[in-house]
């Protein structure tokens, strides 16, 4: 899976969990303030990303994911 595919999956996951449409998800969006990703949703988000992309996200890496763009950047580097 290349970086674009990963980004596509991440956008799908973010849309499902936040209740927004996929085309509304923008890199500059803050996960908490703009998408309402609180603690329970963060749990769902991280589990879904790990399971669907077959990756592991450490606590340190997770703590740095504040925006949609952070997730895209992390997946590009993952």
């Amino acid at each position, binding site marked *: 899976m290349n970086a674009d595919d990963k980004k596509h999956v991440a956008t799908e996951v973010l849309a499902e969990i936040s209740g927004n449409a996929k085309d509304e998800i923008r890199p500059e969006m803050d996960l908490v303030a703009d998408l309402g990703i*609180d*603690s*329970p949703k*963060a*749990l*769902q*988000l*991280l*589990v879904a990303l*790990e399971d669907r992309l077959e990756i*592991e*996200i*450490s*606590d340190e890496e*997770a*703590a740095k994911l504040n925006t949609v763009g952070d997730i895209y950047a992390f997946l590009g580097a993952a």
Partner: protein
Amino acid sequence: MARLRGFKTTWAATAIRWVIQILGATWRVRVVAGEEIFERIRTAGEPVVFSFWHNRVLFCAYSLYRRFLRHRFPIAILVSHSGDGELGAHLARAWGAGVVRGSTSRGGSVGLRQLYRAVSHGSSAVTIPDGPRGPLYRCQPGVVVLAQMTGAPILPMAFASRPAWKLGSWDRLIVPKPFARVHLAVGEPLIVPRELTGEDLESEQRRVEIELDRLVREVEESFGVPSTDRPPGGR
């Protein structure tokens, strides 16, 4: 060096396990509340999130071993990465529990994610609401989030013992002495609603604290004397 440390940990965990089991054989245990709840859970086989304060981990975990794990009831336990956690992990594995390493003090931590997966696949879980490092008798959000997202109810537990040792650790870990009378109480399962705001989450944490504190008072007072180790019962 690491191999030597691993050997020492394994040896220490084995010794602790046998000490607990030998001590346990002398304890006179009475369930003062909730025996039927344990029975209901064992029969139903549905996942629950067993929860008790950190200083009561020893006997509560031993009870889960005696009543559930020995009967192949699957339970995953979250154990911290600390040195004490390593001992706990060895002990839990020896008793047949699934071990997840990490902490639930943050919303989406690795430990919480692994517990979420375990419960989603049908295992029950153990979480210590004030673990791994306190503050004592303060419920961190992890246990509530786990119950909220999996739908598994929180099952609060507490015990008291006469006589007991209280160790010098941050939580004043309680260890029943040989031949001690040990009273155990199990509370009604607490179901956490799926949809919660941030404030609701805090009030659910508070609900867990209140129920655990109530159970502690109940078991302490079941000995007929006022409690000397009563949680503050308020934030």
